[in-house]
């Protein structure tokens, strides 16, 4: 009965084919390590965010009078509303943590190199959409930090020369951040951006399954195939990767639920304390700090303290901040190395990647604290180092001594 039904469907839609190609029989290279788990966990978090988001949406009110109170309504009056909301707040921070780990993995093992350039660019696009999704979502609770972060970030548009101010008013829909801005960002957050995110993630996975997964050795497993055309150094996704991912998801959920049930505020990093006060456009908080996952870029924005010609420091900071995100997309064409993995690259690449990580973490710290002359100087130095990783990449990857990559993966 079931076989007949399946045959009926298969004659009209490639169901079994698709299932085998993308899930059950997808060849996963052996030797994939810890860093290769971020991808599947990102899918898990995406699902958590979508589901908890739908339930939040049932009770949230996107007006300047009602937004803040509706959050408390969810926290207090809706049955288990607090779990739903804490799922969403915890999920958003872990989403960023995982995507940073996932991107770092790409840099570590050269997962962007030919033929995976498009895969990298699609992944980069999900990151950019996620940044926008995070920002718009951050505004919705309509607390003090929501309001003033929106004020600071949107005002960057106003720094664009000539038409900036008009553009800003057009985007805000008002002369200052107001309920109109809120409902716009809300529409983006719950419809446009999630749709875009799901679409791009889907294409990202299709692209991955076309070119195949990389591995920590950076060895092309497709060079050695068995008689069926399956790479010798690979195992089918089911059951081998499924059980591995299941174990990883278990560990992840323990961390996730531990935060959710015992430290939902995350010491003020997951839910800022200032956001417990309702938005007030007459009262500016002492320090305006974005969520932790944006602080490296925020530090870059503040690092530019000098105008150049007619361009204001604020506009230049905006350009540097945007440039820092955009430049990531060009990595596949900047890396001239004959090998993929850091394991076989030379010492320059190792030093460069280490510098990038240190810069990103230091900038993240500097973005959280109030600036002083020394901190600004350090932010400038580390912003420069961040960019040097990318700008110098064509040179240090070309003129270094790489080790020889073996033909097959050993485990």
């Amino acid at each position: 009965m079931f076989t007949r039904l399946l045959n009926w469907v298969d004659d009209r839609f490639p169901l079994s084919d698709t299932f085998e190609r993308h899930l059950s029989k997808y060849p996963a290279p052996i030797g994939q390590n810890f860093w290769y788990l971020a991808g599947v966990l990102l899918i898990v978090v995406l699902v958590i965010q979508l589901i908890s988001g739908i339930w939040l949406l049932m009770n949230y009110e996107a007006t300047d009078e009602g937004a803040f109170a509706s959050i408390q309504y969810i926290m207090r009056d809706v049955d288990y509303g607090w779990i739903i909301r804490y799922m969403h707040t915890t999920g958003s921070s872990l989403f960023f943590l995982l995507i940073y780990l996932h991107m770092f993995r790409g840099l570590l093992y050269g997962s962007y190199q030919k033929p995976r350039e498009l895969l990298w660019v699609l992944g980069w696009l999900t990151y950019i959409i996620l940044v926008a999704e995070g920002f718009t979502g951050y505004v919705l609770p309509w607390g003090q930090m929501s309001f003033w972060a929106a004020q600071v970030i949107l005002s960057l548009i106003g720094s664009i020369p000539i038409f900036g101010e008009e553009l800003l008013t057009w985007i805000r829909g008002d002369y200052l951040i107001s309920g109109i801005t809120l409902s716009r960002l809300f529409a983006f957050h719950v419809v446009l951006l999630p749709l875009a995110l799901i679409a791009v993630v889907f294409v990202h996975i299709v692209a991955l399954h076309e070119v195949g997964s990389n591995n920590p050795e950076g060895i092309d497993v497709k060079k050695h195939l068995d008689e069926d055309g399956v790479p010798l150094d690979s195992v089918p996704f089911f059951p081998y990767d499924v059980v591995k991912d299941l174990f990883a998801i278990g560990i992840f959920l323990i961390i996730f639920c531990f935060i959710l049930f015992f430290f939902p505020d995350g010491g003020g990093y997951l839910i800022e304390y200032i956001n417990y006060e309702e938005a007030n456009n007459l009262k500016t908080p002492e320090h305006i700090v974005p969520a932790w996952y944006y602080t490296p870029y925020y530090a870059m924005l503040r690092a530019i303290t000098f105008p150049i010609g007619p361009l204001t420091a604020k506009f230049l900071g905006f350009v540097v901040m945007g440039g820092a995100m955009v430049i990531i997309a060009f990595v596949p064409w900047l890396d001239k190395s004959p090998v993929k993995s850091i394991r076989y690259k030379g010492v320059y690449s190792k030093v460069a990647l280490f510098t990038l990580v240190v810069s990103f973490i230091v900038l993240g710290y500097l973005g959280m604290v109030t600036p002083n002359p020394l901190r600004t100087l350090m932010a400038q130095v580390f912003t420069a180092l961040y960019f040097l990783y990318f700008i110098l990449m064509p040179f240090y990857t070309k003129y270094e001594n790489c080790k020889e990559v073996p033909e097959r993966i050993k485990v």
Partner: protein
Amino acid sequence: MKFLTLILVFVSFQLFSAEGGPCGYFLSEDDLEEGKCEEFKADHTDKSSLQRGVKIYMNYCYGCHSLKYARYNRVAKDLGIPEGLFQENLLFSNQKMGDLMTIGMDQSEAKEWFGVAPPDLTLETSLRGTNWVYTYLISFYEDNSRPFGVNNKVYENVGMPHVLESLQGIQVSTCKQVPQIATNGGLKQDPLSGELITEELCGFLETKQEGQMTSEQFKASMKDLTNFLSYMSDPIREERKYIGKFVILYLLIFTMLSFLLYREFKKDIH
């Protein structure tokens, strides 16, 4: 080398310097650190403390400070107060147990009276922390330059009058001779006479006139009040932790089983 160390010390000071204590220039009686709050850790399982807290709140605070995100019946249930008793003693006649805890005071009039409308306090301890709230409550002192004749050590020039004065009495801010601390952590002494070298520090609070409560009783009451406000900010805390234990336990079992499965299949891969 010494120069380098100095630079490093300077740099790390600039990088990691504290950004001013949250409690303003409060000089605690117990230790002399500026800006440090008195410590109070809330305990939401202490129902009797919460009950004493809500009693003080409804009698002294609720006239001006709403708890507009919470409902009466939820508070009665969580604090273990029978609804009838709550209705009789803590509820105004025109309100229902299912109502939000709003107040009748007009916001714009309140602004005229106090300079700023008294804020809603449902989320106050989440916003400022229990240490701050507790320290704030015990640090009102006499200051005739202020409209209500009182000022606060933690919240300088606050618009709020000292509504608990009848309980606490009147405090004044005084100066004291305090032993100086030497660089080795000990007390500085005069090398000849052996007497302690002192300096004058100002900002200590001293009771000028006793209220209905002793200082200890008042502090205990303010701890109850802060405890209640902490419950108010995060009413689900105890239930959350209770459920959390079972969730984590389940996940540990699940993860252990999935690990065994993973280990078994891993043997196939050579």
